[in-house]
């Protein structure tokens, strides 16, 4: 799609489907105007979406690269670009450039490993891409556990998919939790970090972690208690970005640019960086 030499000039794409996942999260399916998949990406990578005149923002790609038909973005309403997107209708064109970032090392460090995915709230968006990638290349990976929590049942994104596909997949263990008791919920209640400890995973797994900073902080402590080392834990960062190609200087943390060298970092790499993310 993008001429690689014209990194800042986006391509026009079209929103072909919109799904309301939770009260404030919508998933947008995006194709080129002639109905093709805009680009090939790696799980964990991001792309710049924009509406001229509204703004441009970076979003993680939620769909798995194994999906050959389309790409999807799950977007929570929180700023001006996202608000505009939430008000958009099917058929609306937007501009897209990317994919950006390093993505998860699914073909190297993850290969052959038992995987533990931990996500909170909208943090499942980038992780979903890896989960589905792993499910579609099942033979390459060991056991798969997913711990996912959010404020309430209504705030669980991809609920349909989790119930109908992931839960029905015998090779995947799904553990759901919500913060507070709720009518019609018979699953676990409690915060993600404590649930992870409760579940008590083997420390030979590779963990992928994404969610609000406070959840990450406590989950990391929990994982450490379970015997996980920093080399086994991966997470993805979010910072303000403008260019997506490591030039505008905004997402610079230490010697790294989150848009180019990240957004996926292994915890031991992250520890090397100054605490400014």
């Amino acid at each position, binding site marked *: 799609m993008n001429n690689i*030499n014209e990194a800042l000039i986006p391509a026009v794409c079209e929103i072909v489907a919109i799904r309301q996942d939770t009260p404030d999260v919508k998933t947008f399916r995006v194709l080129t105007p002639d109905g093709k998949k805009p680009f090939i990406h790696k799980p964990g990578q991001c792309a710049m979406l924009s509406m001229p*005149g509204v703004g441009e923002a970076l979003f993680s790609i939620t769909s798995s690269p194994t999906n050959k038909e389309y790409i999807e973005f799950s977007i929570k309403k929180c700023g001006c670009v996202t608000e505009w997107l939430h008000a958009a209708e099917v058929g*609306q*064109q937007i501009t897209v450039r990317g994919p950006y970032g390093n993505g998860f090392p699914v073909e190297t460090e993850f290969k052959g490993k038992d995987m533990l995915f931990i996500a909170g709230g909208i943090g499942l968006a980038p992780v979903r891409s890896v989960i589905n990638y792993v499910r579609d290349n099942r033979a390459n990976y060991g056991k798969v556990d997913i711990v996912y929590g959010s404020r309430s049942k209504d705030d669980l994104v991809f609920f349909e998919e989790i119930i109908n596909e992931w839960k029905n997949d015998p090779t995947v263990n799904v553990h759901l939790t919500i913060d507070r008791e709720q009518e019609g919920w018979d699953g676990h209640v409690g915060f993600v970090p404590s649930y992870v400890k409760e579940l008590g995973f083997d420390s030979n797994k590779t963990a992928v972690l994404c969610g609000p900073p406070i959840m990450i902080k406590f989950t990391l402590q929990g994982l450490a208690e379970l015997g996980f080392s920093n080399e086994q834990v991966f997470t993805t960062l979010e*910072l303000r970005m*403008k*260019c997506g190609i490591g030039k505008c200087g905004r997402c*610079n943390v*230490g*010697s790294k640019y989150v848009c180019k060298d990240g957004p996926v970092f292994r915890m031991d790499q992250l520890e090397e960086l100054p605490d400014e993310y």
Partner: protein
Amino acid sequence: MRKCLLQNQNKLFDQISSFASLYIPVETTGGNASFKKYEQGMVMSDVLKTDRSPKDLFFPQTENLMEFKTSGKNIEVIDNRKESEDFVVFGVRGCDVKSFEVLDRVFLVEPVDTYYATRREHGIIVSMACGRPAETCFCQTFGIDASAPEGDIVCYKTEDALYLDAKTEKGKNLLSKLADVTEESDGKEALKQKEQIKTVLAKLPLANLKADSFGKDKTKEFFDAPEWQILSKSCLGCGTCTFVCPTCQCYDIKDFKTKDGVQRFRCWDSCMYSEFTKMSAGQPRLTQLERFRQRFMHKLVYYPTNNDGLFSCVGCGRCISKCPISMNIVKVMKALGGIDNE
């Protein structure tokens, strides 16, 4: 080496501007100069440092990237760049020439910034040796020799002539087109001036400033230094240092609604501004201390870490003379490097 008598200087400029746009430093108000497009009769200023660095000519303060037209749900992207033409920048000081290398390592690495790359390709740099370096100069700290600057053509200005020495193919090509306003010279005068400059450089007040304690992989060493607190104390958080700096390259991309479309442009931005890193989810650099630290850590540690130890400062000294509160990289280096400024 070619020689052009000073009385022929404007003939030289006229000649260049007949086939390419020419930019020379021109005096604005008392002691200040800035690069302006040459028009017949303009006088080249001898002022050592232009107010803004010539990075403007390659990475302008504001620049249109593209335009959009929208109709209904449809968007059209219009890249309305025109064919670029060659241009010549005359009289770039050694430090500023070096700054292009620093910028190149940002803009010319993959994915290449084509806006910058095109200008670099078409720009020919005629550098100028610094006859009278200022007290605020510290290019030597970063291994830059003001008596022998880099550039496509190196120029020495003596009392009566300009001596031009082509260093690259581009430079040779340009010089060959100037044969009738220049004459061949043995360059002895230029060499003499070079030696003179060297003796002056050694006497500059900041001649002994060393950057050795900074550089690659020193993040941990300096990040939590207590000195940042006091150094950043009175920083106003304005963008003066970043905007006059020849190596600062942060930018913002913004949209402007025109009469019937949207213009996407980029403009310089400054890590000193409070909203630089602000996003809907929060703000990782809450105080001026963090923003102040980011700028200097980037120049002295982060950038060298990514670029084989090359510092993102060329010692031009503009921040020294322009900062409203006179805080600058020299003071930072002295304080963190353990040199007490008395």
